[in-house]
């Protein structure tokens, strides 16, 4: 099963700033992949590298088995919705569809017009006069109607109100159900992603902190709360992700493939938001101080 996105030591530098470093991923096909991380972590950079808008400064990336944007045929297989869902303000909705039809070989006009009708958009309306949610839906329709194998979305719902956000995700999931495409979606709101993604990548401090199937990640990460102890005394096989201690108590987030069987502490499951926060907190701490644990 060829990976839909395969990277090896991928990095991108802007002048002196390293936006993304040493990113090695192998994303299986047919998933809805959530890419989360704080602002400035490199999410947009990674997605733009994947759709060929940027070229890597180190490492390699392959999308659907080929170099990104290596020709019109490859571009036709990947749909992209950029941040803030840009559209041509002076063109009408129908004009945008005409544009898609003329420029994309695999354009499904029936799908596009049905979607527009279903969304209740007026085809004669200029894109500049649409609301944010409607523009996002238009951009999504343009990306979907060319029937891509992979759909990449860069924070598509960040500036939308909750209703528009829900509508957008519903349209996106409907597309996924119908066409068995892979979707890669970035966001800095984890709550949105929890119900939608089955594969997760956490990007923080311009590095991949963790990547894997959501079910597997949730099954193998636990929160242990118990008497204060030195993490070095944990049995091997438990990878400490984040730890915080008071005088009496230690709260540790661990990753472990074996079941945890420690009577001296209570073991809790994590939800996705806690898991992401643990990795992000840890990445931020590593950035600030050389010591891994926060002690008081």
């Amino acid at each position, binding site marked *: 099963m060829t990976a839909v996105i395969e990277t090896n030591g991928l990095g991108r530098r802007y002048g002196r700033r390293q936006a993304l470093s040493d990113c090695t991923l192998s994303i299986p096909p047919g*998933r*809805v992949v959530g890419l989360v991380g704080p602002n400035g972590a490199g999410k947009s950079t990674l997605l733009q590298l994947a759709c060929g808008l940027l070229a890597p400064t180190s490492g390699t990336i392959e999308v659907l088995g080929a170099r990104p944007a290596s020709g019109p045929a490859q571009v036709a297989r990947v749909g992209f919705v950029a941040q803030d869902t840009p559209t041509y303000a002076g063109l009408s909705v129908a004009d945008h569809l005409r544009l898609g039809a003329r420029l994309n070989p695999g354009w499904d006009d029936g799908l596009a017009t049905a979607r527009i009708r279903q969304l209740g958009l007026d085809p004669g309306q200029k894109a500049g006069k649409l609301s944010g949610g409607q523009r996002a839906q238009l951009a999504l329709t343009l990306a979907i109607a060319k029937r891509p194998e992979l759909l990449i979305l860069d924070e598509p719902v960040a500036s939308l109100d909750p209703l528009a956000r*829900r509508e957008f*995700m*519903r349209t*996106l*999931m*409907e597309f*996924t*159900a*119908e066409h068995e495409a892979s979707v890669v979606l970035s966001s800095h709101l984890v*709550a949105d992603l*929890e*119900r*939608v*993604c*089955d594969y997760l990548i956490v990007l923080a401090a311009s590095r991949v902190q963790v990547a894997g199937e959501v079910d597997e990640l*949730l099954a193998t990460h636990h929160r242990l709360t118990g008497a204060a102890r030195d993490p070095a005394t944990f049995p091997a096989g438990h990878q400490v992700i984040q730890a915080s201690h008071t005088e009496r108590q230690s709260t540790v987030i661990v990753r472990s493939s074996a079941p945890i069987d420690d009577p001296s502490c209570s073991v809790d499951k994590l*939800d996705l938001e806690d898991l992401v926060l643990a990795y992000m907190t840890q990445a931020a701490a590593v950035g600030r101080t050389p010591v891994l644990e926060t002690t008081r």
Partner: protein
Amino acid sequence: MMVIEFHLDGRSGVSPYMQLIHQVRQAMRLGLLREGDRLPTVKDVVAKVAINPNTVLKAYRELEYEGLVQPRPGVGTFVTRTLSDESLAAHGPLRQELEQWLTRARAAGLDEESIEALFLSTFRAAAGEKA
């Protein structure tokens, strides 16, 4: 025409696919889903609830594994059994025993939260052993 609708509680701590399973079982228990009814298609669920299609598939597979539904390729997933005959009334003796235990637990001085914690930890441990 969807027979039932799903909703997800993002804050309940229960995974989405478990919530779907619960809601199907609940509907069957209340008699809203009867034998022969067709469950909503994956596409219909996803269009209403903005949830990953694989989650729906997983829930339906789990229900099939439990013998509650049966997929018919090209047509849909159909309910094969109902739960309403397993109404709670049929388990009168079990209910009485539980009420007696609760009385004894309160007499022993346990408050509501302690009773719940005791019950849940024993229940989970037992479920873990069974798995």
